[in-house]
């Protein structure tokens, strides 16, 4: 079970308090009624599915109930950082340093 840092509660809480909510940084067009079929498809249907860092939304459902954003590595399953909804995509180099787990043990001989 993952521990997820809620940027609103400012606490690490167990995964079962949270619900995944899809890709982050997809903004609903203000003039949605007028956009082209292609633009609508790009907004609503097409999603990235990268191997590596994803930006995704989570909701602290059984906590503060807020939606927030996270950068997670789909290979290691590690959260690089979490941040509030509406904030820009973080600089991942800096973020990784902030939130990476404590130093690992010694390497094998």
């Amino acid at each position, binding site marked *: 079970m*993952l521990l997820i840092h809620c940027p609103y509660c400012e606490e690490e809480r167990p995964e079962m308090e949270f619900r995944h909510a899809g890709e982050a940084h997809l903004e609903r067009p203000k003039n949605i009624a007028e956009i082209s079929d292609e633009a609508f498809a790009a907004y609503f249907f097409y999603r990235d599915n990268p191997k590596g860092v994803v930006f995704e939304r989570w909701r602290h459902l059984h906590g503060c109930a807020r939606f927030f954003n996270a950068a997670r590595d789909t290979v290691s399953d590690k959260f690089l950082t979490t941040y509030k909804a509406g904030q820009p995509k973080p600089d991942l180099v800096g973020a990784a340093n902030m939130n990476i787990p404590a130093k690992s*043990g010694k390497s094998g001989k």
Partner: protein
Amino acid sequence: MSSAGEHRIAGVGRLTPANPVRFTFDGKAYSGLQGDTIASALIASGVHLVGRSFKYHRPRGILSDGPEEPNALVGVRRDAARATPNVRATVQEIYDGLNAVSQNRWPSLSFDVGAVNDIASPLFSAGFYYKTFMWPKVAWEHVYEPFIRNAAGLGQAPTEPDPDHYAAQYAHCDVLVIGGGVAGLSAALAAAESGARVILCDERAAFGGALRFEAEARLDGKPGYDWAQDAAATLAAMDNVRILSRTTAFGYYAQNFVGLAERVTEHLAAPAADAPRERLWQVRAGRVIIAAGAIERHMVFANNDRPGIMLASAARTFLNHHGVAVGRKVGVYTANDSAYAAAIDLKKAGIDIPAIVDVRDNPQGSAIDEARAFGIRVLTGHAVTGTGGKLRVASMIVEPNKGGAAEIIPVDALIMSAGWTPSVHMFSQSRGKVAWDAATERFLPGTYAQDCVSIGACNGTDRLEESVSEAIAAGESAAKATRKRAKKSKVKIAVEGGGDWTGSMLGAGPNGANGKVIKAFVDFQNDVTAKDIRLAVQEGMHSIEHVKRFTTNGMATDQGKLSNLHGLAIAAEALGREIPKVGLTTFRAPYTPTTFGAIVGHARGELFDPARHTPMHESEVAAGAVFEDVGPWKRAWYYPRAGEDMHAAVNRECRTVREVAGMFDATTLGKIEVVGPDAAEFLNLIYTNPFLKLGVGRLRYGIMCREDGFIYDDGVVGRMAEDRFHVTTTTGGAPRVLQHMEDYLQTEFPHMKVWLTSTTEQWAVIAVQGPKAREIIEPFVEGIDLSNEAFPHMSVREGTFCGVPTRLFRMSFTGETGFEINVPADYGRQVWEKVYERGKSMGMCLYGTETMHVLRAEKGYIIVGQDTDGTVTPYDAGLGWAVGKNKTDFVGIRGLKRPDLVADGRRQLVGLKVKDGKTVLEEGAQIVADPNQPVPMKMIGWVSSSYWSENCGRPIALALVEGGFERMGRTLYVPMPDRAIEVEVTGTVFFDEEGGRING
């Protein structure tokens, strides 16, 4: 000779002869000592044959003394419900009355019919399953599957439900130490003395690990095993330490989350009735110290699987710990020094060692010198190339590696060591990457992925002294890393002795499997031989993952703890590649088999998925309701009276509602209070309908779409004040609708001042529907004018009902005059009883969800999720009137204009009239235009709702049909196995088409 077995040697071992324990194996009575496992107690009585192998049914014995055991699996049976198959005899402690049985044999262990597989073994070589069971298809059903089912799996599952209970506990600590051998104990002492909160677990009954057999080691001047018991006692007495024996760390998950399974009562003769059988620990640790030790490997040579052939360390444990000699004439075959120590210990105990056969040409070291000094014949540069015997090994065939005459040496046991495999299982589970150490021929922890550290034998640290100092350092630094005010521990442990073993052999020994059909076993539990692995390579398997699956090497319940490296080495040799290039399969949880009971814990039966009851539930039970599950809710389905079946009850309820009145529990509908200055604006965006101009005190039926334009949910919304709405949702939709609204509010429209609160549990909702509804509720209502003029259909008023505050809705899901009485949930049952008492006297009935469904279908009202399937737009459902034509934005506005959604030929909701006037269509049945077309027919739609309508006197149905609105009056067909049912396309309203009754 001792009563606890004729192979028990007086004065040897640590068990107390004063504590005898009686048990049975295959019905025969045996006696062992407190502290024995089934394995040690059977060997003490001279029993080595304990099971038959999986594929070839070959006689098998006890190979190891621990959890890695692949062979000695037995059934342990307390009663019909407590019969556990595949228990490792090397782990299960004996208790008075223990009843163990051998597995995979018929009719008896010593004479087994299935052993014919052994003679027919060329038929069962690698890939046998894949090649043999290919075709024809029909053979699967009648030949292959029954055969596989009979042959597959070892042991018998219990025939009754498990009556025991299983506990579960979360735990947090600074330092979790996995493994309680010398390294784990030392690390735990150092971490605990530094002030860290420590959990130490070990899968065995007692701590000490290799100190159980390592007789020469002394720590702090004490014999090693005694030191371990003292260390465990010291730790147990500390407030900041929890030590768990009989507890296996089986899974290592993200962020140092580790699963431990504690076996609480499996070793007890008479467990307390309230004791859990097992306890699942879910531990979150600051740092994990892995001190899992190493596992000795067997030698791979022909017929290396006869009972009496075992690992050298096992023989040493049986001797030094249990006081049991594994034979009277014990042969040794080794590539490693540690087997010498076992031979010397046995020799000292008076056991004859006819020869040590060492595959190495010129092994050097004190162990070899000492063996020679004891007068043991040491044959270096030799190999054991076969064994004799049937149900027990009787001889070993020894040949010089350089060629020469074979010698047959009689033995009654044969011990072996191909070296030690560091247990990197937990490290690998933590997603760490192992690294190949070519000098010592082993995989060691390489790159770490989590905050953990490996120490001792599992880290490749061989010398006892080094293990101890490495452990103390790891314990201290773990405390420092996880604890703010860690102090320096004063732990110092003086070390003397302990093995310093070199030597290793991977793969098959000389003459191991060249050409001849011989069985040199790599994986004992799955009966995989060296030849099978070579065959797999020959047949094109070049990745170890493919070799593993083709041969099933390492895929049995022991997960190849002994076999993986041998298999890999043989594959690498056959491929002509280096071992690390061929790869190592990933270790996965669980480390050893873990019971479903432990994992499930209390979450079973009624606690698996708790049911939700409405406040009126008990009244409904008393009224004889039959309930159905709707999501997590128990909803009254129908209320049968004496002699009524469901059909009769529903017909009566349907008639009564339309003729008099009926009362229905609508509490489960989702309810959301939407409040704030922008509440109307917000709902205007969420629903397709216009909401800005809805007057206070008015209700509106609203449809909610997703952005793609498909119906997501529906419900009635009441405006309680300018800035306050009472929203209802479908029963199943309540949580997702709130999530959907919160999502838009928080992330797309965050500028809006709106607050959303789930109020589903706050209100009890009682629907009273029918011509007499008003008359029934009238005496209970205060502060609300109930007249049709003052309180028309689709209105809401606040007042009191039975003296309780109410939000009274004038609305209908039946087409009759109707009210929905919302009262605070705590008053729900009293109000329900009051209304029922009066209504009953006037001829009203209670009705359930089935009647509700029929009545709404008679009116063509849809149920989202039944008449829609996530691809239905409001227009498809005939609800285009509910889409605000002048709105410039709402969720779904763009999606509804997508080319496919405005194209002709969409499936549209229509009514179906069955031409014969009596057949009730099956919901989900497909619809075709021409019943005589060839199969597969073109299906143009399906039946979404279908009932017998007592009020119409005929069956009614709703269906989604391609271009349905254009097919009014046309004949279509519903093909069934026996005939095609003729139907006519109609409108969706079957009863009171003018709709006058609702305004009565």
